[in-house]
């Protein structure tokens, strides 16, 4: 089976309908579902990631491919109940109290989801207590926080303090980002990682989980 397989292509160009159709066809032809995922879907997503890294793809292509992958997985999921095609890890994400800046966070979500992470989006202006509560509920591997204002970045520290107070700090890795944030500030508040750009978030998430 080679790279020119329709499923691989459909994901690469972000055509969800075609990807699903190709999957159903392959299943009907008796293909092993797990093999389908590993040999074609995963490889297509890896190629999408590579193209994005090289700046041949932009975010829209990345997101469309991720959506096509989701469509293609639908007929497969029921067949793989007991096998792990689960996510690389679970990330809880939000902008800190007082901060309303969506799009950086949303980009990070897109990057992470594109890389196979499960992401729980708490939205913007998230109070420390809500981070704590959701950690208890969702048991994520990583908590990601962003702040775009010099006057909201101190809320990162407040949030980490609240996590400590609640005894959940050590259950998660904490990563932070946003225009006024620096590596130094991340170190000072005791975060586990910092990235300057949204596209650095995937590598960072993998690094802190390693």
């Amino acid at each position, binding site marked *: 089976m080679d790279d020119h397989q329709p499923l691989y292509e459909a994901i690469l160009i972000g055509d969800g309908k075609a990807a699903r159709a190709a999957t159903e066809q392959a299943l009907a032809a008796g293909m092993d579902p797990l093999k389908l995922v590993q040999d074609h879907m995963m490889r297509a997503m890896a190629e999408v990631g590579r193209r994005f890294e090289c700046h041949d793809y932009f975010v*829209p*292509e990345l*997101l469309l491919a991720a959506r096509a992958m989701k469509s293609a997985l639908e007929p497969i999921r029921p067949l793989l109940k007991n096998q792990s095609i689960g996510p690389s890890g679970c990330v809880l994400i939000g902008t800190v109290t007082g901060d*309303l800046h969506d799009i950086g966070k*949303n980009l990070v979500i897109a990057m992470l989801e594109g890389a196979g992470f499960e992401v729980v989006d708490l*939205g913007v202006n998230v109070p420390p207590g809500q981070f704590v509560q959701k950690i208890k509920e969702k048991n994520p591997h990583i908590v990601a926080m962003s702040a775009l204002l010099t*006057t909201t*970045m101190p809320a990162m520290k407040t949030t980490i303090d609240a996590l400590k107070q609640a005894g959940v700090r050590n259950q998660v890795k904490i990563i932070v980002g946003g225009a006024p944030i620096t590596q130094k500030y991340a170190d000072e508040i005791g975060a586990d990682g910092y990235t300057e750009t949204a596209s650095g978030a995937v590598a960072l998430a993998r690094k802190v989980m390693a």
Partner: protein
Amino acid sequence: MNRFNKLAIDHPADLRFGIAPKPLTTRQGLKLGGGIVYPELNFTLPPMFVDESTMPEVREQYRGIIQGALARAAELEAPGLVVEFETLPPMTEHPAWGIELTRILLDGMAEAHARHGLKSVLRITPNDTREMERPPRMRSGPLFEAMLATFDGCAAAGAELLSIESVGGKEIHDEALMMGDLRGVLFGLCVMGVRDMRFLWTELQRIADKHGVHCAGDTACGFGNTAMVLAGQQMIPRVFAAVVRAISAVRTLVGYECGCVGPGKDCGYENPILKAITGFPMAMEGRTAACAHSSPLGNIAAAACDTWSNESVQNIKLLGGMAPTVYVEQLIYDCRVMNQALADGRDAALQYRKWLVASDAALDPQAYVLTPESAVAIARVIVNAPNHYAAGRAAGLTAVKLLRDAHRDGQVKILKRELPWLERMQKTLESLPAGENQFIDEMMGVVDTSKFVAADYEL
């Protein structure tokens, strides 16, 4: 509501810095757009919380900023100065704080006037805190009320220019940007954005009238500049951001239709288009706003500016002084050159403008769509369109055409991987329905309607 159906500046050569067909004279007698480019200083707090307990320190910060910056401006004999106070969200949520800080700034400005004869005017830019709730309540509720109270109190205190970076339409536009979806962009800017602008600026005009101050202008910051930042990070194509910029002018225009008289808000890089349409003076920011963000528009942004801004800088110490003081110095020197060129007459100013434009325009499509020629061309199709939806579509198509032609003629560098996007955007725009109602019907079936309150947009 005053629809602009012809251009105030019909010829690209008349679209230039320092001169606006309809200048604005302030109480102290600064004539913005009247032949001199003025510096416009912006600033923000260093990393710190803003709450009841830190307010004494917050006051000290603003007092220090205004004293330091105005002393430097007086030393350097600035011909005048626009000060912009862009509040931080807690200062809009607690109008008393925003108003008190406005007074502190006005006091500093009055003192510099008394002591050094330095003329200045305050622009107040409260936050559009309506988006603190999701979905945002755009036309009522405590956040909305507090925002209006901030405007009202600051205008009463003496802030003469009212501005905001309003967010109506962002609920849909953010995702449209990330998906490279021009239909969503148009819906966010020219349907939702236009409707919210019309509502909001009608409210603000009431406040301005009450206190005898001016509605200055809005900016499609959360739209056009978000696109620019994403393009700068190579997240979306530059040509896409360039087309978004052109379309964004339609949204920003609504402020002027509702009574704004300029200077348009600094971060509205679409302002040259609006200057061509309205004839009002415009604030612009460029290279000397690198403290706030990088841009491919560092010089070209100055080509049609009437005030020249640094966008925002934290009040932190650089070796040469506090950053706002450092930046006011840089702005003043920038303005000195423009004003020397202006003093030498029309041809001289056009010579300088040529260098400002040429130094950026060929390097990035986002710069190319803002050359005086491009700006006037886009402005023209906007005023000729029957409604905002059609205007947005026409602006987008014109931007695409300008870029295709310029690329064909070797006048602008467009990366190979972006070329398919030009075609894709043209197709999308051409395939749009002719009527706004049909477009709305189509889009309401597609967009995530849980993200906004349809009634707040008359939808």
